[in-house]
């Protein structure tokens, strides 16, 4: 294993992108993801890459669209209000089937909200966000090491499926300092991009990148193609981490920062004689529905506790997957507040006693 270095989550995202071969970054400043931008501003020149501080998030995502059209690996990063502005571009990227990685280090909303951690953009990220029938791959790392590995992987996934892969973190993950071990050399996927608009240079036909299909049959056919791709991703790309499920009575559903808090709670519950397990989705879309369904069938499991930094968004997917087989309870905090271990433990005790 390579030597470990202490780094901030946001900086690791930027470093991972460069290691994955991304040489183009377009962004607009916003807390709490600004370190991604600072790192890129500093490092991109050293790698002969592009750094553009765009005039807005709208412009930044459209620069991403243009860069992706040329077949280059490209990154933009922002936080909630900025990601709202990027939705137009993200929808066009989905329609034109371009590969791009978009980072959202979420903060509290709605509106200008606050600058502290939140998971309030789960719906926006996983259900589409912009207009039209489309999906983004959504990945939720829970540590700085994972931020590194999953950012590298995001570029592969984006290239493979020609779509946006979104890293969905929250302010805590972005701001956190943790040791990270980088590989000597990244093994990234080499995907041929014969569709890219690179200038023809002797190519027989001109390439065109577009998301408009005026004929309804053409547009429906395009949508069917997209849906087929999404079904394939649901089959092949689900990632999750299940822990402590043997004989578990209560199973926590949590991702990102919340899953870290819950890990400690599991230990404390064990001391009280309550067996608690956890399913941590790593891909939020595709969602690990099969795993939740399987766990819901386990006779030992009495119920689920979904913990989020929101009013309850992922819980809808958990409930769909559990499909009424077991009760799914909720604990959430908003506005940039984090749940304490005690709060969560109290919920677990209540569920265990049948007081919920």
């Amino acid at each position: 294993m390579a030597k470990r270095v202490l780094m901030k989550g946001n900086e690791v995202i930027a470093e991972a992108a460069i290691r994955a071969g991304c040489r183009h970054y377009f962004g607009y400043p916003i807390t709490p993801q600004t370190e991604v931008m600072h790192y890129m501003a500093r490092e991109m020149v050293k790698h002969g890459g592009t750094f553009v501080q765009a005039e807005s998030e709208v412009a930044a995502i459209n620069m991403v669209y243009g860069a992706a059209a040329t077949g280059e690996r490209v990154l933009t990063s922002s936080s909630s209000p900025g990601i709202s502005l990027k939705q137009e571009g993200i929808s066009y990227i989905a329609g034109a089937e371009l590969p791009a990685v978009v980072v959202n280090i979420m903060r509290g909303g709605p509106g200008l909200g606050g600058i502290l951690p939140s998971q309030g953009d789960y719906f926006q990220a996983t259900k589409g966000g912009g207009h039209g029938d489309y999906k983004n791959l959504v990945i939720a790392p829970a540590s700085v090491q994972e931020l590194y590995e999953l950012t590298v992987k995001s570029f592969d996934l984006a290239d493979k499926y020609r779509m946006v892969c979104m890293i969905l973190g929250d302010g805590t993950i972005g701001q956190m300092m943790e040791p990270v071990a980088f590989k000597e050399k990244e093994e990234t996927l080499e995907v041929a991009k014969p569709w890219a608009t690179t200038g023809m240079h002797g190519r027989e036909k001109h390439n065109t990148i577009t998301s408009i299909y005026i004929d309804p049959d053409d547009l429906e056919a395009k949508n069917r193609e997209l849906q087929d791709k999404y079904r394939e991703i649901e089959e092949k790309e689900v990632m999750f981490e299940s822990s402590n499920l043997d004989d578990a009575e209560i199973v926590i559903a949590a991702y990102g920062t919340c899953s870290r808090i819950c890990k400690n709670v599991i230990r404390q519950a064990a001391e009280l004689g309550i067996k608690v397990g956890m399913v941590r989705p790593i891909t939020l879309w595709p969602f690990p529905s099969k795993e939740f369904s399987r766990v819901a069938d386990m006779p030992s499991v009495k119920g689920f506790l979904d913990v989020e930094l929101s009013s309850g968004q992922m819980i809808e997917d958990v409930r769909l997957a559990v499909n009424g087989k077991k009760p799914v309870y909720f604990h959430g905090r908003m506005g940039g507040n984090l749940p304490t271990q005690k709060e969560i433990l109290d919920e677990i005790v209540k569920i265990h006693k049948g007081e919920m």
Partner: protein
Amino acid sequence: MAVVFQKTKGLTDKPFHYCPGCMHGIIHRLIAEVMEEMDIIDKTIGVASVGCTYNNYDYFSCDMVQAAHGRAPAVATGIKRCKPEEMVFTYQGDGDLASIGTAEIVHAAARGEKICTFFVNNAVYGMTSGQMAPTTLLGQVTTTSPLGRDAETRGYPINVSEMLATLTGAVYIERVALFDYKHIQEAKKAIAKAFRVQQKGLGFAMVEFLSTCPTNWGKEPIEALEWCKEKMVPQYPLGVFKGQDLEV
């Protein structure tokens, strides 16, 4: 038999869908001819915008990217930064460039992006059936200024060329018209100059074309041309607004 006229290789064989008397077709042909004459079809990436010309990616024979409404200069920035050796142009209407896309065009010009913008000012939103554009003249009747554009409630026309010419990053800005053979030849020269500015890496270049929309102006093609000459030119004078002394 000797060939006396041939369609330029800069265009595909797909027939244009534009209305009779519309100047988009002429402007397309001029850009295409310049690309052919400069031998850059193979190394050009064009950006189509949103308006009547949304699908001109089917007409230009070079590589083409379709952009969201107003965002073509940002898309072109992304392309050019990745492919600095290629020639990159945007083709935008006045609704696209001067209304929804003002931020993108101003900042592309301010950054001195090495791209060419071909800006078609027909004083209305053509595609969506003749609404008022930022370039609509005072008094001009449109579907959203049915009593004529009044400054009190609808403000004043924007002179984009003059405005962008104030930016250091914009190195060549010219407004041209297509009234007759002479003007058309001048317009073609301006297109070629814009591409040469880009070839030399000097900065942002834009050619604004005064154009017609007979369909939404409710005029016959010839009448529309006259109206353009008589009404538009006083508001939008022809000429070079930046780079008068530029030798390229």
